[in-house]
């Protein structure tokens, strides 16, 4: 098995790659809509490919949604791009160095033709920053083929048969694309390498976080199979499953190919109109299509009996593969085939009539599709093509990951990328001066070790805080003010998270305010336990001081002697319990005492005082 990974990571720069718009996604209603069409520019070579492309996309109309204050004429392709964002270049160079890559001497921005409308220009601007690097993995070194800096595409909002709606907010956000060589040998290794690359990117502190900000594509092939590209694996945890399922799929397809060749199987392009047979059908799906004026068509797959019901991935059969093609090329809901019939309301009589009409024997399989005639024809011809490919083995194609790690067909493998220079953007020389400015961040693997050993954090807490935006604040507080590391880290990672979920705007507190809170806890001004309440109060009373919070929540400091008095009183009142249960009574009595002083003083101090008093009595 050979696996390569391609990672796309959005950068958290202030501005987009070729204009000064901010890099934010928006959910409020767009301010304007622009309508566009694209047409491929002819080239001297490969006219056939071009023509096919043209035919397929010719009818599509693209609608672009924009915002006056966060998308500009550059995204609309109404103004030439500005110079490349230097911050994005610096981040790319940093990552390139961390991946031991060779940095180019001069950056040239290219136009990569993309005419699905996801770029208003009809091309994606992309530049090679570095090549030929490596990272180490426990199963061996993995080569890094390429690092490119490119603009993210527009976001698809919805689509119909002849239009696609895109939102311009994402178009132009800087994106780093890292591709490994096909050196990965297992699903586990793929997951590890993806994780490592993700950590390296995060270590720069300059990448976006959250859903959709990092996308992983996988290139997978097995011996005797073909290179299959799998798009949109969003979760790291899914990578090894996807790899293993794809290896399984290719293995099963190879077996199917052998079996089909042994049977001399073939698919015939002849289309049969079988609408008549289903005129009185009880199948709800077919009935619906017929009422809408549709027809039913059939094709015959000679020698394919029982093949369509063969599992090739968990829950996906060979018939599902054919159905994918029908959906993509014909835009229909799906197909029926005789390996699974009678079922879905289609009767045994109807199947028999089908077999008679198409002159099929028991070794043949019949596939039918219902709906608008042209769509059905396109769908069934695609099924025929895919079925005939099955005799050859695994087709090279682009697939999309399903949430369970299986995949479905997206489109055939594109030819070589069509690229030409972006003449509107001057090339950028990477000078010694620029190279000297690159500051390599601490690798997260080393950082986590330092946090566990140096600060005594638990591995869980350490792994959270090293990737946290509070990471540097944490180190500052702990190193300069001798505040308990575990408490600081758990405040940032656990308490803050809890409060964020409640809707408390914890991230708006400034560093000095946070520092003051910790210092006051150290001094004993209020108890650790009161921190969440103080943060809640401060968030609801913007502009007020911590002193105000303490007063408002009546957290003023309680004298130790008063607590000792209360502890003694409780001990006196519960002597019977103490005598009976000894030290175990501590837990019960602690509750009573905490009721009086919760939040006003550290629970640990209360506990110690009470314990002393109980031990005195027991002595």
């Amino acid at each position, binding site marked *: 098995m050979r696996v390569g990974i391609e990672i796309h990571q959005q950068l958290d720069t202030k501005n987009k790659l070729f204009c000064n718009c901010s890099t934010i996604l928006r959910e409020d209603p767009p301010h304007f809509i622009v309508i566009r*069409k694209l047409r491929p520019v*002819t080239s001297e070579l490969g006219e056939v490919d071009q023509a096919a492309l043209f035919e397929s996309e010719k009818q599509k109309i693209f609608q672009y949604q924009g915002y006056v204050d966060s998308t500009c004429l550059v995204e609309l392709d*109404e103004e030439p791009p500005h110079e490349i964002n230097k911050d994005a270049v610096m981040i790319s160079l940093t990552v390139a160095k961390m991946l031991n890559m060779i940095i180019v001497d001069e950056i040239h921005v290219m136009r990569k033709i993309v005419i699905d409308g996801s770029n208003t*220009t009809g091309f994606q601007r992309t530049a090679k920053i570095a090549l030929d690097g490596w990272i180490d993995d426990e199963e061996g070194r993995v080569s890094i083929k390429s690092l490119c800096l490119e603009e993210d595409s527009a976001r698809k909002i919805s689509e119909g048969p002849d239009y696609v709606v895109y939102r311009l907010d994402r178009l132009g956000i800087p994106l780093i694309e890292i591709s490994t060589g096909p050196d990965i040998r297992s699903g586990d290794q793929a997951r590890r390498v993806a994780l490592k690359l993700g950590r390296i990117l995060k270590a720069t502190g300059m990448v976006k976080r959250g859903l959709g900000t990092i996308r992983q594509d996988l290139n997978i092939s097995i011996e005797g199979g073909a290179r299959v590209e799998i798009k949109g694996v969003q979760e790291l945890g899914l990578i090894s499953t996807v790899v293993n399922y794809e290896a399984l799929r290719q293995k099963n397809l190879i077996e199917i190919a052998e079996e089909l060749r042994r049977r001399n199987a073939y698919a015939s392009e002849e289309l049969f109109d079988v609408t008549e047979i289903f005129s009185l059908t009880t199948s709800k799906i077919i009935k619906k299509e017929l009422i809408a004026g549709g027809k039913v068509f059939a094709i015959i797959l000679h020698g394919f009996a029982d093949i369509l019901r063969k599992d090739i991935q968990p829950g996906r059969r060979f018939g599902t593969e054919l159905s994918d093609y029908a959906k993509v090329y014909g835009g229909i809901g799906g197909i029926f085939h005789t390996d699974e019939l009678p079922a879905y309301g289609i009767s045994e009589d109807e199947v028999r009539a089908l077999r008679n009409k198409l002159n099929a024997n028991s070794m043949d399989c019949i596939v039918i599709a219902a709906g608008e005639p042209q769509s059905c024809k396109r769908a069934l011809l695609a099924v025929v093509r895919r079925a005939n490919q099955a005799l050859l083995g695994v087709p090279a194609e682009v697939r999309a990951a399903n949430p369970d790690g299986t995949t479905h067909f997206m489109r055939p493998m594109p030819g070589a990328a069509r690229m*030409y*220079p972006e003449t509107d953007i001057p*090339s950028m020389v990477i000078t010694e001066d620029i190279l000297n400015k690159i500051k390599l961040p601490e690798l997260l693997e080393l950082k986590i070790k330092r946090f566990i050993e140096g600060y005594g954090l638990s591995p869980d807490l350490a792994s959270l805080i090293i990737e946290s935006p509070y990471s540097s604040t944490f180190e500052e507080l702990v190193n300069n003010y001798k505040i308990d590391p575990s408490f600081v880290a758990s405040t940032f990672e656990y308490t803050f998270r809890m409060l964020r979920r409640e809707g408390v705007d914890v991230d708006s507190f400034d560093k000095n305010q946070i520092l003051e809170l910790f210092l006051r806890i150290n001094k004993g001004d209020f108890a650790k336990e009161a921190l969440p309440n103080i943060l809640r109060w401060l968030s609801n009373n913007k502009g007020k001081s911590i002193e105000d919070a303490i007063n408002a929540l009546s957290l003023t400091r309680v004298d130790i002697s008063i607590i000792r008095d209360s502890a003694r009183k409780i001990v006196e009142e519960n002597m019977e319990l103490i005598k009976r249960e000894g030290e175990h009574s501590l837990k019960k009595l602690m509750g009573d005492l905490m009721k009086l002083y919760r939040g006003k003083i550290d629970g640990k101090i209360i506990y110690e005082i009470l314990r002393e008093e109980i031990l005195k009595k027991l002595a």
Partner: protein
Amino acid sequence: MSFGYRGKSLELLNKYGVNVGDKIFVKTNRACFSGILMPRSEIGDDKHIVIKLEDGYNIGLSISSIIDIEKIPQETPSKIIQPSIKSIPNLPNVAIISTGGTIASRIDYRTGAVSPALSAQDLYQSIPELGEIANIRTEILLSLLSENMLPKYWTMMAKSIKNHIEKGVEGIVLTHGTDTMGYTAAALSFSLRNLPIPVILVGSQRSSDRPSSDAYFNLKAAVLTAAKAPFAEVGVLMHSSISDDELIVHRGTRVRKMHTSRRDAFQSINSKPLAKIRNGNIEVYKPYKERGGSLELKADFNDKVVLIKCFPGMPLEIFNFLIERGYRGIVLEGTGLGHAPEYIFPYIKEAIDNGIAVVMTSQCLFGRVNMNVYSTGRILLSMGVIPGEDMLPETALVKLMWVLAQTNDLNEIKKLMLSNIAGEISERSEYGGSIL
């Protein structure tokens, strides 16, 4: 050809005997690279060479790091595929005259070179739909960046148009760079007297080597308009908004480029456009000159004319220079209703006394000059300054060049400048102006 290489980088390429387009293997002190040697931008330095890697990306390599370059033999690229042209009978004939820039482009993805598609054959290949609208005949008249336009080229264009009309066409499309398309449109409007067919100028704001180019949409509509429109005037056809759904034909004497980069940069000023085109339907706005009649060519221009913008602190010496050098006409782009600073009045008077025609227009662009409202305007009028009505300053400039090629008599000049010859002046200032 050095393809943008010069100085040290050119020296290095010569030393190893490699040319642009060659597949090469480059050894540097850090790594080895193989790819195709690419042309270099003329603004690039002489310290790098550019190669296209296997995956299509271009990168620059510093020549100081290069240890060796080797040429790798490569197979010759496949031949250009040319589709055959089918001529459909009964379609209108349209001539496309190209004056520069590219209407349609072809890209060699191997080298990234963009070449213009100008012949009829190229056009059919790039925009096959054209063959369904009209039978196309093409002429490559000029190959100019439109900023380099000269009045003598207007004469050339007018003559070429006359030629095509005599050969028999239903309409003419003239492709033009957008920078000075407005000037040319005005010049042709005056030159082609009693024009029998539509002459449509068309350009693009996004170069035709990109899939999003407006060139195709514009050109298709231009051919349609030339073939089918009922009016016989000179028009400029471009996008009506930044969407690819509607086009607009502006009257040649009333159009101005009003944006540096948008597709809908061209606007009609002080006038409705000639037509709108949507989904292949032409919606026309009256009044217009109908098709028919026989062409009378008057395509001479006197280029001893200048356009001067009035501004606070404008220098006086300009006028001395113009008088000394024998200039024949001055178009002033005055402030407001048609005013100029009083300190230049003596110089304007001197110019007029020297037989120079002085025409006043407004830098407001929208609206009409009226020099009777304030005393400064009245003084200018009394000196003999010709009020340019609601003419665009650029149109007034072109018109004055055209008029001065016919007469030197100031009274005659004034009469011609004040009469509406090609829709450049309207008697009434309509509410709404250019808004439909």
